[in-house]
């Protein structure tokens, strides 16, 4: 059963130079305990999508439309109070910036305790004890000392571990990790990913993982959604997507399929570079969003936007020329 069902999500920002359609009609779902990876170049709307799910988009200038059904309820219809009860409790999030995502003037312990006290009604002592357990769980040595420390006394990797501890403190049903390792050193990246892989099996939460690291995708995710210019252009189970990517954009990103286990051995593959630029999201786009950079683009592509079509088992792509079942060029 789907834990999360996102239907036609549209998150737009009003800017002085026009409306930025950062996310424009994206639909997807995540099953209980499942890991969905979202990949795509910078600026294609991955963070905005994930923050929309938790309604963390500043409104204004942002506006979120569509529907986000989580455990049967449409999050966009909830009151602020109902939404607060979900944030950090049923759905929690790890951000891309470990150095700046923790509050510099509050102790690590306090920052973990807080969610436990808000959502589980624990008193300070119990919350503190639980915070120490969480620090142990995420592999922080000397947790009893660390709870009393401030973020500036911790390294980047340690801080991201603390963020993970905060996110998992209340046993969320859904964990959103937005490029959790991008800002870290390569060796630390591998450690954090190993931790996440480990926790995925232990905690059993569904995960939405945004990453540039295809090795990680191959290892952790069951399904992959590929985003481009605020839209979903392809989605498929991991093995299927790596074996037969249908959308020219996905093919460009993959460049070559990574070997399994590569991220833990430090030979992780990042997304390949694709020549050309992402279209301006403030201008209406007619035809295929990728046409400006696509080697296969034709007049048809430039005039009519391709819809998402079934291209294989649980595999959809939005391209006029990605024929069903055909092996892509």
């Amino acid at each position, binding site marked *: 059963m789907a834990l999360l069902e996102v239907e036609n999500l549209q998150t737009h920002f009003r800017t002085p130079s026009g409306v930025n359609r950062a996310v424009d009609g994206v639909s997807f779902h995540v099953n209980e305990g499942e890991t969905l990876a979202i990949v795509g170049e910078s600026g294609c709307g991955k963070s905005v999508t994930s923050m929309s799910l938790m309604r963390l988009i500043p409104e204004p200038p942002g506006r979120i439309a569509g529907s986000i059904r989580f455990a049967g309820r449409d999050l966009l219809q909830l009151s602020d109070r109902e939404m607060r009860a979900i944030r950090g409790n049923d759905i929690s999030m790890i951000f891309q910036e470990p150095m700046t995502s923790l*509050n510099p003037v509050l102790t690590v312990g306090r920052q973990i305790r807080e969610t436990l006290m808000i959502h589980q009604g624990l008193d300070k002592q119990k919350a503190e004890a639980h915070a120490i357990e969480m620090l142990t769980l995420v592999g922080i040595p000397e947790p009893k000392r660390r709870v009393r420390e401030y973020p500036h006394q911790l390294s980047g990797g340690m801080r991201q571990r603390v963020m993970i501890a905060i996110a998992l403190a209340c046993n969320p049903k859904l964990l959103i990790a937005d490029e959790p390792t991008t800002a870290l050193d390569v060796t630390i990246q591998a450690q954090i990913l190993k931790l996440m892989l480990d926790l995925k099996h232990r905690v059993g939460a569904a995960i939405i993982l945004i990453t540039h690291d295809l090795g990680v995708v191959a290892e952790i995710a069951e399904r992959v959604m590929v985003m481009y210019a605020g839209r979903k252009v392809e989605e498929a189970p991991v093995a299927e997507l790596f074996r037969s990517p249908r959308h020219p954009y996905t093919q460009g990103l993959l460049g070559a399929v990574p070997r399994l286990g590569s991220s833990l051995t430090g030979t992780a593959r990042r997304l390949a570079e694709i020549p050309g630029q992402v279209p301006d999201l403030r201008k209406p786009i007619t035809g295929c969003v990728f046409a400006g950079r696509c080697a296969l683009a034709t007049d048809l592509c430039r005039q009519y936007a391709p819809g998402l079509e079934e291209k294989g088992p649980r595999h959809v792509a939005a391209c006029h020329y990605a024929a069903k079942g055909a092996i892509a060029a």
Partner: protein
Amino acid sequence: MLSYILRRIVATLPVMAIVALFVFSLLYIAPGDPAVVIAGDQASPEDVERIRQSLGLNRPFLVQFGSWVWRILHGDLGTSIFTNLPVSAMIGQRLGPTLSLMIVTLLLTIVVAVPLGVVAAWKAGSLIDRVIMGFAVFGFSLPVFVVGYMLAYVFALELEWLPVQGYTPLAQGFWPWLENLILPAIALGCVYIALVARITRAAMLEVLQQDYVRTAKAKGLGQGGILFIHALKNAAVPIVTVIGIGIALLIGGAVVTESVFAIPGLGRLTIDAILRRDYPVIQGIVLLFSFVYVLVNLMIDVVYTLVDPRIRY
């Protein structure tokens, strides 16, 4: 922490010494021969010479300064030329009202200005923000005596809610004491509130952009917790600074406010002393205010270390 405070106190000694030198020089910087000035218009040359002798004004400057400092260190601020009373006793008599006025104004400012600034930053660009900032500009540009007379007219004379003027010591009850201070505190606090509200807004605007504020929201914290704990504590350093600097503003404003509301405080004493050229009194008051200011600075530095763990001591 204790050793930090001690070190800071030691560090203020040179500042105090310079202040003392300046205060002492007041008499010499002022135009005219101090002895003539003190003796007054009707004095004969013999009178002037007698005053010169008795005050030791004929001794070298540094010797005079040295003995002056020595006496101050022993708690002797000298004797008023006009009343012949010890300066420390005169100041002691007037300290209560002024201290009361400043503390009430300070508390009023913190209680009013900080929440206003926080709300203005939270609702930045909205009508509420513009109304609050409009008031801040207004409050900033109104002279203390104008606000004071307006308040006294409306709330004391017309509505008769509060006394027009005067002062009641705290020993005679909390409300009688506070009642007399409300209007003066508002009048005196106007500029200060405007200043602190603006700085609070600016500091909060920057903090609210930070990633950790988003994290706090993602954890399910309410707006109050986000604004007043997670954000405000980070914005505290500039706010504390301006509150501290504002105390200097209060000292100046208190003089005017005390005149408007007939409060028998240091402000009145200062004016009287200046009009009578009662130099020992002027020196005592200036020295006291400087001391308060140095003390406030020390307190600010201590508060910094309390609100921001990254500031080392």
